[in-house]
């Protein structure tokens, strides 16, 4: 049975109406896309200066009693951990002028925590071993402080392996009790402080001092006084 044409209801929309509506739709989409681009342009950017990237990390072995100790020894140079000793080369150091400033700041912080600095020949309770980490690829490294402690602790062959990987130019400080050695006969790090990437680029004393201070501020268990 055929349905008469006049019984079928059909919306009649002219070409002009469709054109107008589609144009309106396109305009709306253009506004939306423009708004998205504008908002993306003002997306918060985060760090602006190199010091904004500074991170200070400290790690302590939980079972060590720092309060029962009082003296420490510190070398007068800061060695670079580069991996070169494994190839038979001599250790290399950061420039003395910069090392002196860093070591002075470390001394100031240790003193304020109650520690007395003594020479390595005076049987210190702890050895503080600063280094500039220059590689992210070294899993093991050789005795980078042998030039300093070799005459006093000659049996130490493989100093502790610092955990994790640090950015190039990271300043690392370790505290070692010479009377405590691991099962392999090597010293054990009781505390580690790391300032990530701070020895790259130009030396900024304010930035460095702030970071070194922070290393000791976030290690209150080192306080002996």
């Amino acid at each position: 049975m055929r349905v008469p044409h006049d019984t079928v209801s059909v919306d009649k929309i002219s070409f002009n109406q469709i054109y107008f509506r589609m144009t309106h739709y396109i305009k709306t989409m253009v506004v939306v896309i423009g708004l998205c681009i504008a908002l993306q342009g003002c997306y918060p950017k985060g760090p602006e200066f190199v010091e904004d990237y500074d991170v200070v990390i400290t790690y302590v072995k939980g079972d060590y009693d720092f309060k029962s100790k009082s003296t420490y020894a510190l070398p007068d140079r800061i060695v670079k951990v580069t991996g070169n000793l494994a190839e038979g080369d001599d250790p290399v150091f950061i420039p003395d002028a910069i090392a002196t400033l860093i070591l002075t700041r470390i001394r100031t912080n240790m003193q304020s925590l109650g520690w007395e600095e003594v020479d390595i020949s005076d049987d210190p309770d702890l050895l503080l071993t600063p280094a500039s980490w220059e590689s992210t690829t070294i899993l093991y490294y050789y005795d980078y402080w042998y030039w300093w402690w070799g005459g006093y602790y000659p049996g130490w062959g493989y100093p502790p392996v610092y955990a994790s990987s640090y950015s190039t130019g990271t300043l690392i400080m370790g505290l070692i009790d010479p009377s405590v050695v691991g099962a392999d006969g090597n010293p054990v790090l009781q505390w580690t402080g790391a300032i990530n990437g701070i020895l790259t680029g130009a030396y900024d004393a304010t930035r460095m001092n702030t970071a070194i201070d922070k290393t000791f501020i976030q290690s209150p268990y080192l306080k002996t006084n």
Partner: protein
Amino acid sequence: MVMKKIACILLYFLSTYAFGQSLTAIQYSMGFGTGDLGSYISKPSFRGATLDFRKLVQPNVGIGFELGWNVFYEGQSGEIYTRDKLSFSGNQYRYNNQFPLLFAGDYYLKPDEKINPFAGLGIGTMYSLRNTNMNVYTLEEDAWNFVLRPEVGVLIEATPEISFMLCGKYYHGFEAGDLPSQSYFALNIGFVFKK
């Protein structure tokens, strides 16, 4: 199969847009975090946008969808964080992006008047993306939260085709994925195009 469904939904909305009574709202959105989101980032968000579409099934009832985006951001300087034997400090840069995707319905109290208050409810999902940046590292957490979103607002007619819009929305995203409940208020202003 999924693409077909998405295509059908898009075609439906495009066709209803082109050939029915409808409202399309483009809004600038400010966000104010509450709960976990407010604790993580206390600063309000001044970066956000919302696109609302409603098909008027009756003169005072509209149903449709909502797409939105708000980014919350805050820098934290120098705080010390300790976990077991490890402590670290430095500047943290926190980002929380919220992308609500909702089915929505509104009820218009005075559809024939120049000032037309309305209330509505949305239901759907919200993609929450949280990044905690420190140094060159980022901790990324995300979730697809189930969302309920009540809304109140007002339309102020400027011309027969265009109205101004002011509205407040509250997004309550339930716990999901890596994140606990993510919720925030949004205050939106924008334009509504009537067809």
